[in-house]
């Protein structure tokens, strides 16, 4: 199987481990990822904030390159890039005038035929129903699946999962033996693009998310987005300072968690790159049989 692939800038830098773990798992599943040749930055929040045309044109070039390379489906692991690309694609397909204008700006014909897949959809493909992959080391932890805002909204454009209470990552986690908690902050915003310029606000928002997960007994937060990861992991000190409280809960990319369950090593998956060490509280092994319960029920059990 083959998929087009758009890494995005942060996967070359601050989110290297997302790329590393994704590639390993994909390889194990025999999935070939072909990078869009000569791809550029999607412009991220910055372009979106400052210049609308730019924020559409930069993704348009990427999508045009994908079309040119004949890619039917493109996996975009960074949620931020995924969101920008999908939005631009939607806007351009809806608005022929804009499409014309942008085609001129990027000096290429924009068709926008490639279907974009986010990292969760990508993992569903790689590690789906008929996957050859076997869970070797069940990831038996209580986890909080954190989707963030960019993966599900706007629902009209992205058409991915339920926008208020998504389940797809939870399902993947159950598949590797984890126990996803039911919590209300799955799609709350972590502060995203204000990470550097208003770290104070990011610390507040991300802090709320951490607190909510920890309070409900989560032992790890599973994320799908480099921005979420950097805000919850790299900004941990800021969060702790703002909250006046320490948090040891690690933040893993879903690809890393799946990689671990598939028996890949921490080192290969890039876990050492996290600022918050990936350690779990030691649990005494209970002899009771596997509980196949719904997320709601398990959450209820914690509250008792």
């Amino acid at each position, binding site marked *: 199987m083959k998929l087009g692939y758009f890494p995005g800038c942060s996967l070359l*830098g*601050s989110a290297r481990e997302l790329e590393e773990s994704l590639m390993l798992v994909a390889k194990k599943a025999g999935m070939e990822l072909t990078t869009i040749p000569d791809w550029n*930055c999607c412009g991220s929040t910055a372009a979106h904030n400052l210049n609308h*045309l730019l924020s559409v044109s930069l993704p348009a070039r990427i999508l045009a390159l994908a079309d040119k390379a004949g890619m039917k489906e493109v996996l975009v692991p960074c949620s931020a890039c995924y969101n920008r690309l999908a939005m631009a694609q939607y806007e351009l397909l809806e608005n022929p005038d804009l499409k014309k204008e942008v085609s001129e700006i990027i000096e290429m014909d924009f068709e926008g035929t490639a279907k974009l897949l986010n990292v969760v959809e990508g993992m569903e493909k790689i590690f789906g129903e008929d996957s050859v992959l076997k869970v070797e080391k069940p990831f038996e932890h209580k986890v909080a699946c954190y989707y963030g805002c960019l993966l599900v909204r706007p629902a009209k454009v992205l058409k991915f999962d339920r*926008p208020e209470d998504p389940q797809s990552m939870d399902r993947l986690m159950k598949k590797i033996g984890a126990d996803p908690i039911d919590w209300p902050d799955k799609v709350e915003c972590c502060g995203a*693009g204000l990470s550097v310029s208003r770290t104070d606000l990011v610390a507040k928002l991300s802090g709320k998310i951490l607190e909510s997960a920890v309070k409900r007994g989560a032992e790890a937060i599973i994320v799908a987005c480099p921005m979420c990861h950097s805000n919850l992991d790299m900004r941990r000190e800021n969060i702790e300072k703002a909250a006046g409280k320490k948090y040891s809960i690690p933040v893993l990319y879903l690809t890393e968690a799946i990689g671990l369950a598939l028996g890949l090593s921490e080192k290969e998956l890039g876990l050492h790159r996290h600022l918050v060490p990936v350690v779990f509280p030691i649990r005494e092994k209970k002899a009771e049989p596997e509980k196949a319960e719904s997320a709601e029920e398990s959450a209820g059990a914690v509250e008792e």
Partner: protein
Amino acid sequence: MEGHPEDQDQSLMSRVREGTGESAYKCYQCGKCSAGCPLALEMDYPPSQILRMIQLGLPGLEEKALGSLSIWLCLACETCVARCPKEVDLPKIMDFLRQESLRRGLTHPTAKNIIKFHRAFLDPVKYTGRAFEVGLIADYKARNPISAFQDVLIAPKMFFKGKLSLAPHMIKGRGEIGRIFERAMKKESKK
């Protein structure tokens, strides 16, 4: 950024409609957006009030909206539009207001840092085709010496974790990207 007088005597309301296809009149001020907005409490005016200022179009209110901090704090998290009963695309309007605010030179003083950051982010993209995290931090620090110290603190850690590469990535289509920037900038400022 130069003002276009014939544009300015157009009401902000109709400018928004032109620029975004969204009508601020659709909003009936239920406040659901403000209730769910993660940053409403940090904003000088909660999102629904920004819309109200546009709706009324009374003297002074438009400038107040364009000069607000709110429009720069908006994270484009889309929580508001996802729940808005009238399907008002607030983030899109916020986008437009930011650009309008820049065009009219009305940006809120505290927003300057945010804008500086965005510019610092885009600069390397313009010249190399991709974002450059080390450069970004250095550049932003240069533009904004006061609040960058925190990033200076974590930058070395990131470096040692292998998360920062010291050289920017140069793509082949750099020339194209440069032209994309030029055209987009020119066209937007004319709007």
